[in-house]
């Protein structure tokens, strides 16, 4: 049973490669728009590129997760999950992980290409890579929570992000501070450990929160 759900989730992503490539294309598109707005001043761009990468990552996860439950909700699959004997927490956990792996993880793999385009030095690149690796699953999980909250509302394209963004702020603060420490030549162990602890707090608790939210959203 578990393996069937696991396969089903993976097949939905593999059936249409758009699921995997569209976030990646969106990320690169938005990243490459920034120099056009800021101007071709190389030192300025190199200085603010970690922030730009993080902001773009937030946009990508937001757009990616706004309608996360839409298909399942319209098909009635969520009701099936909620009434089934299997633990829905497990399914939701799988959904979060698989969504992250197929939509956000490819972006993180391609970050080194961005670093070549924007002339980022290796130790800052490592910090960006590490913070994204630890931070983006949190972003995805919280974004999915936002989509679960707004599931009963028909036009929620803007509402979901409005609710979600304030919850991203701790992650943002610690990631930015971790990257800044490295660029100042200081150790960033503290920030990385805080990010790791937020990740280890959010990932196991989020399925339970999602289950509760979906129950409220559907019982009306």
């Amino acid at each position, binding site marked *: 049973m578990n393996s069937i759900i696991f396969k089903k989730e993976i097949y939905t992503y593999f059936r249409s490669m758009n699921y995997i490539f569209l976030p990646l294309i969106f990320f690169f598109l938005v990243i490459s728009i920034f120099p056009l707005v800021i101007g071709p001043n190389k030192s300025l761009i190199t200085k603010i590129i970690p922030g730009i990468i993080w902001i773009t990552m937030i946009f990508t996860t937001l757009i990616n997760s706004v309608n996360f439950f839409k298909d399942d909700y319209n098909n009635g699959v969520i009701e099936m999950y909620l009434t089934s004997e299997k633990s829905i927490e497990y399914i939701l956990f799988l959904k979060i992980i698989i969504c992250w792996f197929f939509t956000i993880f490819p972006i993180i793999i391609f970050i080194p290409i961005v670093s070549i385009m924007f002339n980022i030095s290796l130790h800052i690149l490592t910090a960006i890579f590490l913070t994204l690796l630890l931070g983006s699953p949190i972003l995805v999980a919280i974004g999915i929570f936002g989509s679960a909250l707004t599931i009963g509302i028909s036009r929620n394209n803007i*509402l979901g992000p409005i609710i979600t963004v304030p919850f991203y702020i701790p992650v943002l603060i610690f990631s930015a501070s971790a990257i800044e420490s490295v660029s100042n030549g200081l150790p960033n162990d503290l920030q990385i450990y805080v990010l790791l602890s937020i990740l280890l707090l959010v990932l196991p608790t989020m399925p339970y929160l999602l289950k509760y939210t979906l129950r*409220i959203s559907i019982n*009306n």
Partner: protein
Amino acid sequence: MNISKIANLKYFYKHTENVTKTLSFITFFLFIAGIFWGLYIAPKDYLQGDSYRIIYLHVPAAWMSLQVYIVMAVTGFIALVWKIKIMEIISIQSASIGAYFTLIALVTGMIWGKPTWGTYWVWDARLTSELILLFLYIGVIVIYSSFSDKRQGAKISALLAIVGLINIPIIHYSVEWWNTLHQGPTVTKFEKPSAHITMLAPLLYMLLVFNLYFVTVLIKRVRLGIFQREKNTKWMENYLND
């Protein structure tokens, strides 16, 4: 008095009409007295002159913005767990009051910042967290208003409020995390208060008045919320006709 009676919407609506009138009068006069105390009687600050007097609005408003959030989250929790109708209404009605308090804190802070820091806005930890608090309030209000089924909207917004409570510790401890322009807390240091008692007393008094104001407005708004929810029922019709 029985708690289950107060939790009854009908009982609450019928018995709080006179209470709100009395409370409004008391709050109004106490507020005038507090303004007078803060603006005329309290001594001048040796460093900031008279401009520090906005503290008597700024600090209580900032304090209330946090306190109301806690009230909103706790009543929301009670509403979700024990399914008490009046708690849903209290939770959602305190959201907009809290948003106003946050707005007052931000605006007075900006007005105060101009003479003391030389700029209206600084991106330091506390200002930013207060702004985020405003966004959290707005999120709760907006998600409630987007639901056509108000019961479900109240439940979802209560859940959002509870989860948003994570942000409150960040606001409190942000002062210690970042060393920035904003001065540290002056009120809570009891062992060696950095404000003199003649300045501190009106501040604590204003805090009490703001609390009273919150309770008064909350009762009024809860009455309004009950009216909106129960306007088509028999008892409301009978009560309004009497």
